[in-house]
């Protein structure tokens, strides 16, 4: 199985693992929230900065471990095809989730009020909106990496 795994594919696996580490850091942050919205916004900014910094460092380390001193080989037609399809999947996920957030922010409360029901998934304040957008970005990144891995393994 390993003879068919290229350095590029190993890099994609490392991207997925780094995305998952970022996700766990974020979930850990959510679990430890104090409930003070103003403090939470500041902490959200800190955790996003932390995730980005850790991702960059781990990404560089992974690149060095996998590729050594060599530059990654250029993408050939199969790599470009897989990259394009994965980017498309990630893009559509981001669009759909963002439309869902806009719906929740702008419309959902009014519709639920009309039917006299509570909106269990209300997204109304900046902290909730920030978290919702961050979840979209993480989900989109994970789906893109997973799509690439699946496409490298299966028949195109």
């Amino acid at each position, binding site marked *: 199985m390993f003879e*068919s795994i290229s350095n590029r594919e190993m890099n994609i696996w490392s991207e997925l693992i780094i995305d998952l580490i970022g996700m766990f850091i974020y979930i850990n942050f959510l679990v430890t929230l104090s409930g003070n919205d103003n403090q939470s916004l500041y902490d959200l900014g800190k955790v996003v900065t932390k995730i980005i910094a850790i991702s960059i460092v781990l990404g560089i380390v992974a690149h060095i471990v996998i590729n050594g001193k060599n530059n990654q080989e250029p993408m050939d*037609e199969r790599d470009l095809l897989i990259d394009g399809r994965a980017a498309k999947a990630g893009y559509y996920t981001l669009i759909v989730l963002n439309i869902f957030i806009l719906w929740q922010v702008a419309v959902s409360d009014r519709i639920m009020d009309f039917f006299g029901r509570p909106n269990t998934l209300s997204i109304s304040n900046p902290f909730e909106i920030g978290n919702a957008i961050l979840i979209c970005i993480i989900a989109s990144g994970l789906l893109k990496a997973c799509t690439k891995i699946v496409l490298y393994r299966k*028949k195109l």
Partner: protein
Amino acid sequence: MTKLKIENNIRALRFQNDEMTQAELASQCGVTRQTILAIEQSKYTPSLELAYKISNAFSKEIGEVFQQTQQLS
């Protein structure tokens, strides 16, 4: 849309040509070894340009390297 099933005998041709390795063929065609492996395993259908490059590497016509085996509905 009907999809064609296309197979190839690249592996056999490599062995006939001084036991050419996948890496050597990949280098001649400007692709990665994994792409050649995927083509040999029929997991990937190359573009026309790549198919010609592979055929030229063996000094064969494209029809001698790639064959349509059946039409899938």
